């Protein structure tokens, strides 16, 4: 159903799937052609995916484990870790609640403008992260709509933590909703209606009927949402002001160190984020295998609708 369901299906059915083609003369590629395709695709994979990943860890450890530890234990790095965790801890739950509410309204009811609403929820994925930062500067910056009001009340949004949190919420806005809407639409509303007939109240229906049905999709959306929240660079960069120890998230700290030519330290901090990415990919595969998603392609427009999840940088 999403990009990752492809992963799981290849894992559970991949070998069998490959032999489906490899075992028959009509679909078996000649050995020379197979070798050529395999070699060029793996060369591309190595050059563009594997080597950059290896390079992060190699560069991080270039000056040894002591320097690696020192870069991570640095007070500015630790405060960047704290701010990154804080932004994610606010953005992810908010977008989770929003995602569940949006999916409930869209999947369980019909109302005019539903299609438009669904499209608008996707909108943040097609906005360049730099533009995301810019819109909040225009609203909350010194010259912005609320700029003078904020200044009068001694409040700071831009070049401060609230701006970073807002930008993070924007770029991770659709993740949970995009995951839950098709899932809850596919499940229909018969089970919930039965619960209501049997006398369950609204929240009881949600906790005991809906939630068990959507928990894996929910977890999947949260994992993707969290990865993006912790890794966002462009949008956060515009609104942060890059104040060390105050408004630096981990990706921004990587940038500062790198621009100061502290390459080993920059890559040390970057390796933390690379580990986060690897954990995210591992969790995605795990959730996929647990949730037993339908084989990709069998569900409606399955293959690519959710690729929007990652459309914006």
């Amino acid at each position: 159903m999403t990009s990752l369901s492809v992963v799981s299906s290849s894992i559970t059915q991949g070998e069998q799937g490959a032999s489906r083609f490899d075992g028959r003369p009509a679909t078996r590629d000649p050995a020379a052609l197979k070798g050529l395709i395999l070699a060029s695709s793996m060369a591309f994979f190595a050059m563009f995916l594997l080597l950059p990943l290896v390079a992060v860890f190699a560069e991080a450890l270039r000056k040894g484990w002591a320097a690696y530890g020192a870069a991570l234990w640095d007070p500015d790095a630790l405060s960047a870790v704290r701010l990154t965790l804080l932004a994610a801890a606010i953005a992810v739950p908010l977008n989770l609640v929003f995602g569940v509410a949006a999916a409930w309204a869209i999947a369980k009811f019909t109302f005019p403008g539903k299609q438009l609403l669904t499209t608008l929820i996707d909108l943040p994925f097609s906005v360049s992260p730099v533009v995301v930062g810019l819109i909040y500067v225009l609203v909350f910056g010194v010259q912005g709509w609320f700029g003078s009001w904020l200044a009068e009340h001694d409040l700071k949004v831009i070049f401060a933590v609230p701006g970073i949190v807002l930008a993070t919420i924007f770029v991770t806005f659709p993740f949970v909703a995009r995951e839950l809407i098709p899932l809850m639409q596919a499940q229909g509303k018969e089970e919930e209606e039965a619960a209501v007939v049997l006398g369950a109240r609204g929240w009881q229906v949600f906790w005991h009927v809906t939630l068990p049905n959507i928990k894996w999709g929910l977890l999947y959306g949260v994992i993707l949402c969290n990865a993006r929240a912790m890794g966002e660079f462009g949008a956060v960069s515009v609104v942060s002001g890059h104040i060390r120890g105050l408004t630096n998230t981990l990706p921004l700290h990587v940038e500062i160190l790198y621009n100061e030519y502290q390459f080993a330290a920059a890559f040390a901090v970057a390796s933390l984020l690379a580990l986060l990415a690897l954990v995210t990919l591992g969790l995605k595969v795990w959730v996929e295998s647990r949730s037993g998603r339908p084989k990709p392609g069998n569900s409606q427009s399955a293959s690519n609708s959710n690729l929007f999840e990652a459309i914006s940088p």
Partner: protein
Amino acid sequence: MLPGFGLTLGVTVFYLALIVLVPLSAVFAKAAGLGWDGFVAAVTAPRVVASYKLSFGASLIAAAINSVFGLLLAWTLVRYRFPGKRLVDALIDLPFALPTAVAGIALTALYAPNGWLGRLLEPLGVQVAFGPLGVLVALVFIGVPFVVRTVQPILEDLEVELEEAAASLGASRGQTFRHVILPVLVPALLTGFALAFARAVGEYGSVIFIAGNIPLVSEITPLMIITKLEQFDYAGATAIAVVMLVFSFVLLLIINALQAWSSWQTGRAR
């Protein structure tokens, strides 16, 4: 008869307006204050035009490269058995999961003149990092998953019998691919291409480290917005943002249409 419609729809619309719609409208309000002549002047300055050429040109080429290699990767993952296949399949999504700043410095380290790959390319007179080629490399990286993940499920669903029928009717492998397999893949390939292109045009984090950011040579359009902001030229930054927003909205509509075509086509093929 289910409860909660008013509450959930209210929360959804309120939150959407608060976080997305109202702030986005600020861009158009600010740009309107610029007046038509001011707007045109801002979005057609030579440095800005040079950035469009690079951003759109490099994004198109990157999406084309991703279409070719994405198809090869999807083909490899669906049709062949080889050691490490699961790992390769899982790592295809790395560009979705790896923060762009990390990707940016890693690619720069690899392709810089003293890097693992840059060292091999330098004797050939090819300088990748700190120039337009570096922009291309970064955009190829972030676009990898799109074509693979759109084409892969279609390839998996392909009926073996189709190819057997073609073979039994005397078609060569090449003919079967051109006339039987490729037509089914075209909508998915185009969708993947458009998604990779859309993503590449807006990309910032992975590009700025490797681009070198030389005015008129290797500045991308999102960087022009940042540059204007740093000069406190908010109106100028906003004007460029409007161009980018309108472009991505149009692309969003095209992608929606392509996806509808894709599911219609695969529905028919089955």
